[in-house]
């Protein structure tokens, strides 16, 4: 006993040690959410050069104001010349850029400076430079790319003049290091050079001292020193210095502004200083920068006056490249004056809350009216159009009105007069068609649309606009063939949308991954409206006939056939299920075994089980077509974010669900689509509704699968598929949609598996059942 005990203890300790050292199990992680965009909502189609040239497409009121302003220019005849187009495309590209790309670009100038100073013989690594300076709980960008670029240029000039090993150069570098230490740190001011030092070296040093004070937030000292430099005609910085003195005042005002208001005195001084710079003809190389700073000062000192000014400037024809800064400032000012940041969502904005100063300016009023979705904005748009008959107001009124508006006839008549060659024509005709459809004037709407789509082959509509028209035309389809022709659309972007700007992933990046490779080339898929109509407005009879035709490309035909096959099984519709077998035999060879089992089954129940067994083994099977990119995995692979099988048809739709579970088209839309296809007969619509109601009663896919697996096992205990089906059913409750029934169905399947098939490998592989939420 005394000998056995230590052995047992050693064994225990060693076993424990082994267990303790083992790694925890790896956990699966789902892919990022890739989605298809069929019409851009945040900005026009890319590249933006087309929009800048006047290819406006269908203008959306969700676009940023900088785009709507350009549209306004085109509507009022100002347009954009080549320089203006380039300037605005550059603005838009900068705004759409990932903020980290901007950060990295800023770092490039610093890197160049560090590389340049590193070449100076004997110069050490130098201190690390942090371009931000802290102020209370935030920081500000203290040292800009321009600062480093200027320093690099100066260094190169001095190196050329003095030589790389000259002490004056090394001293200059050392002093410049001190200057940049002030970007983030405590004040470090270089010492002045003695009066007998080289004159250029002294002038350089004086400039560095002034700059150091600037970065150290000692603005009064900086201003004074720059003024002294300005008075030294021999200094190479004498022309630049007055501008920099103004910059010191502006920076002082920016950082001194608090709850009491802005530092108007400093700004007023800056304004006076900048006006002197602009008046100095010998300082023309600084005028552009001075003008920008003056605009900034005006923006702060008198925002309402600046708003008026910018409203004129941004519409002035041939304003050249200044338009870039003007549009930038204008849109920021509009945001600021309208308190945009106070709204939780842009849909909360109300026309009544738009400040009077904005409403009093025609273009600004138009921008806000066009963007805001409430009744007041709609009424105002129609009122302004009635008063002015101006094109921008026609567009705003058309975009907001409804088919029961008393002024509908007048608006539609006015829309007819818009020239087809006008940049705004697609927007006008889109809304005219929308109103005709809503008013039930389908033949007129169809005729208009067909002409637009025919013309678009010549005029090349932007793809977002083309998809918008295809969507409208789909709702007017006269038969299923026509429906399918317009239901399939090529997305304008396939995107992970990391920054919320709907920017497309590069084709070469998509091509690298096996699960996204197929999206590297443009191919059609179903947008939400098409999927909704197929999934919830059409009876099986119509869907199965659609599979037989050749209106769809192979991948969409396969998708529809699979959906019909599964749906037919759920509804015990053998005829519809059999109808798609030939297509599936050709297009879904991986299901050969299951298709054969289905074909040879001798009863409706057996056929149903054959399909459900296939579904259990292929989590991608569902009685629905997918939206956009759908599931990114083959149907036999399980997806980690529970996008497997299907959810209950009566679940409420949420915005999260739509974005992140595009394949699970959700309920409220499923059951009551806004525009059911017109070609369906009343009997077909009723049949579709009946079918949806039946599907809704079945509940979430995994629950249904578990119930059916249990039922089949009870009635067919010797079927070799039964235990595997039960195992898969229990597992499905872990990886698919769940609800309050899941616990019961999962447990029931589990218990049946273990009680009846306890010795099978399937029971051994099923140690747990699931409540659905772990």
């Amino acid at each position, binding site marked *: 006993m005394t000998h056995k005990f230590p052995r047992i203890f050693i064994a225990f300790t060693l076993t424990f040690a082994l267990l303790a050292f083992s790694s925890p199990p790896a*956990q699966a992680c*789902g892919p990022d959410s890739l989605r298809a965009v069929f019409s851009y909502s945040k900005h026009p189609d890319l590249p933006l050069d087309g929009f800048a040239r006047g290819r406006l497409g269908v203008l959306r009121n969700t676009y940023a104001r900088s785009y709507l302003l350009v549209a306004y220019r085109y509507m009022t005849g100002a347009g954009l010349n080549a320089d203006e187009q380039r300037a605005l495309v550059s603005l838009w590209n900068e705004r759409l850029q990932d903020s*980290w790309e901007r950060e990295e670009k800023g770092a490039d100038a610093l890197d160049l400076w560090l590389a340049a100073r590193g070449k100076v013989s004997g110069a050490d690594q130098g201190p690390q430079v942090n371009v931000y300076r802290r102020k*209370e709980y*935030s920081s500000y960008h203290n040292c800009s790319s321009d600062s480093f670029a200027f320093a690099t240029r100066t260094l190169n000039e001095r190196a050329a003049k003095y030589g790389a090993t000259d002490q004056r150069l090394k001293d200059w570098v050392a002093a410049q290091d001190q200057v940049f230490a002030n970007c983030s740190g405590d004040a470090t001011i270089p010492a002045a050079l003695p009066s007998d030092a080289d004159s250029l070296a002294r002038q350089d040093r004086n400039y560095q001292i002034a700059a150091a004070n600037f970065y150290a937030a000692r603005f009064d000292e900086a201003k004074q020193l720059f003024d002294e430099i300005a008075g030294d005609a021999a200094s190479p910085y004498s022309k630049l210095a007055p501008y920099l003195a103004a910059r010191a005042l502006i920076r002082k005002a920016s950082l001194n502004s608090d709850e009491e208001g802005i530092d108007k005195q400093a700004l007023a001084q800056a304004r006076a200083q900048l006006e002197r710079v602009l008046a100095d003809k010998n300082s023309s190389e600084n005028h552009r920068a001075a003008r920008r700073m003056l605009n900034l000062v005006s923006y702060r000192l008198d925002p309402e006056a600046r708003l008026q000014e910018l409203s004129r400037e941004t519409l002035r024809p041939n304003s050249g490249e200044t338009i870039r800064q003007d549009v930038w400032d204008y849109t920021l000012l509009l945001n600021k004056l309208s308190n945009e940041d106070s709204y*939780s969502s842009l849909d909360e904005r109300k026309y009544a809350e738009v400040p009077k100063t904005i409403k009093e300016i025609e273009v600004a009023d138009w921008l806000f009216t066009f963007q805001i979705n409430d009744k007041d904005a709609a009424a105002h748009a129609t009122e302004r159009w009635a008063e002015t008959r101006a094109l921008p107001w026609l567009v705003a009124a058309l975009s907001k009105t409804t088919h029961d508006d008393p002024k509908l006839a007048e608006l539609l008549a006015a829309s007819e007069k818009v020239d087809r060659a006008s940049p705004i024509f697609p927007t006008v005709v889109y809304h005219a068609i929308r109103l005709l459809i809503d008013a039930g004037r389908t033949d007129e709407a169809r005729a208009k649309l067909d002409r637009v789509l025919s013309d678009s082959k010549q005029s090349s509509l932007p793809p977002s606009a083309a998809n918008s028209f295809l969507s409208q035309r789909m709702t007017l389809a006269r038969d299923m063939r026509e429906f399918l022709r317009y239901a399939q659309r090529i997305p304008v972007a396939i995107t992970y949308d990391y920054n919320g700007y709907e920017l497309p992933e590069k084709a070469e990046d998509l091509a690298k991954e096996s699960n996204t490779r197929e999206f590297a080339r443009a191919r059609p898929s179903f947008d939400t409206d098409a999927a909704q109509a197929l999934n919830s407005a059409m009876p099986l009879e119509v869907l199965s006939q659609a599979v037989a035709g050749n209106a769809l490309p192979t991948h969409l035909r396969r998708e529809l056939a699979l959906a019909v096959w599964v749906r037919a099984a759920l509804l015990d519709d053998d005829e519809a299920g059999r109808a798609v077998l030939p297509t599936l035999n050709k297009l879904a060879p991986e299901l050969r075994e299951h298709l054969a089992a289905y074909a040879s089954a001798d009863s409706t129940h057996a056929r149903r089980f054959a399909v459900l067994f296939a579904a259990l083994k292929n989590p991608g099977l569902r009685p629905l077509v997918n939206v956009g990119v759908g599931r990114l995995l083959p149907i036999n692979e399980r997806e980690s974010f529970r996008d497997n099988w299907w959810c209950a048809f009566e679940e409420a739709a949420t915005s999260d669900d739509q974005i992140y579970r595009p394949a699970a088209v959700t309920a409220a839309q499923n059951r009551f689509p806004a525009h059911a296809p017109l070609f369906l007969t009343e009997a077909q619509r009723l049949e579709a509704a009946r079918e949806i109601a039946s599907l809704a009663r079945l509940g979430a896919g995994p629950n249904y699968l578990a119930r059916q697996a249990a039922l089949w096992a009870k009635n067919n205990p010797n079927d070799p598929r039964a235990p595997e089906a039960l195992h898969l059913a229990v597992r499905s409750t872990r990886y698919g*949609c769940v609800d309050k029934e899941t616990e019961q169905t999962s447990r029931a399947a589990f218990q049946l598996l273990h009680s009846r098939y306890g010795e099978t490998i399937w029971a051994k592989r099923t140690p747990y059942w699931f409540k*659905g939420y772990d």
Partner: protein
Amino acid sequence: MIVSLPQIAKLKERVHSRHTSLFTATLIVTSLLLVAIFFAAKFDLRKGLFRPRAAVSSSAASMARMPQLILWAWERPEDLTFIDTRTTGVAFLAGTVFLSEDKTITRPRLQPLRVPPNTRLISVTRIETDRRAKPSLSVAQQKETVRVILESINRPGVAAVQIDFDAKDSEREFYRELLFELRRRLPSSLPLTITTLASRCASDEWLKNLPIDEAVPMIFRMGADAQQVRGLLASGEDFKSPACRSSVGISTDEPLPSNSSIFKNRRTYVFNPRSWSPEAFARIAQEVQKR
């Protein structure tokens, strides 16, 4: 005293027996000591390091003294001078660290923040990784990130640190190492908390054994996990992970979970996609209070 042979034999037997017992006792004690060391030290063989147990007790006590309502102040101009500092704290975004390939790019908070004196502040650092140019997750990146976070706490009123990082599986080890290093270098009484996807709290083993005082499950912007998490909460269940049971994160623009027990005795963090206003604050405070 005469000792007979049998007595000597018995003595020998007793000595032998004592030696054996001594040996056995030594073995048992050594084994027990090894087991005790394991539990005390929580070693990780993968790295071959012995990690000291996280000094959570004083930081946990500090965390317990934080207000029950915390407003997230994100990268927007925020004027929170209207709050009552006895009941409300502020978790402000102090900066963001972006990891891409071998680079560590940092950006401090650029928008102003105003708070009343005596506000209990949590300095939040967000970590993002480049989805296209995957980060190398090097030691250098870890060190720089820790340095940035440590720098961020040097501000008046900072009473805790929070890390906001939606780490993918492949990034978890890096994150874990970072948290341990950070905990080691933070003052022992300064709490360290993290935000986490709510779904991680439903099932994730990874949160276990992290040197944190709190993991805030964010019950908003849940994306693909929304259905699972809402279902769990609606059924009356709680998060599995104990680290997730002392707080909850919500947003002003999403419905609150219907299960009100998720708010009982838990710190509530509130996100606002826009700048805070007294009205927005009053609305959400009332909603939270109702629960």
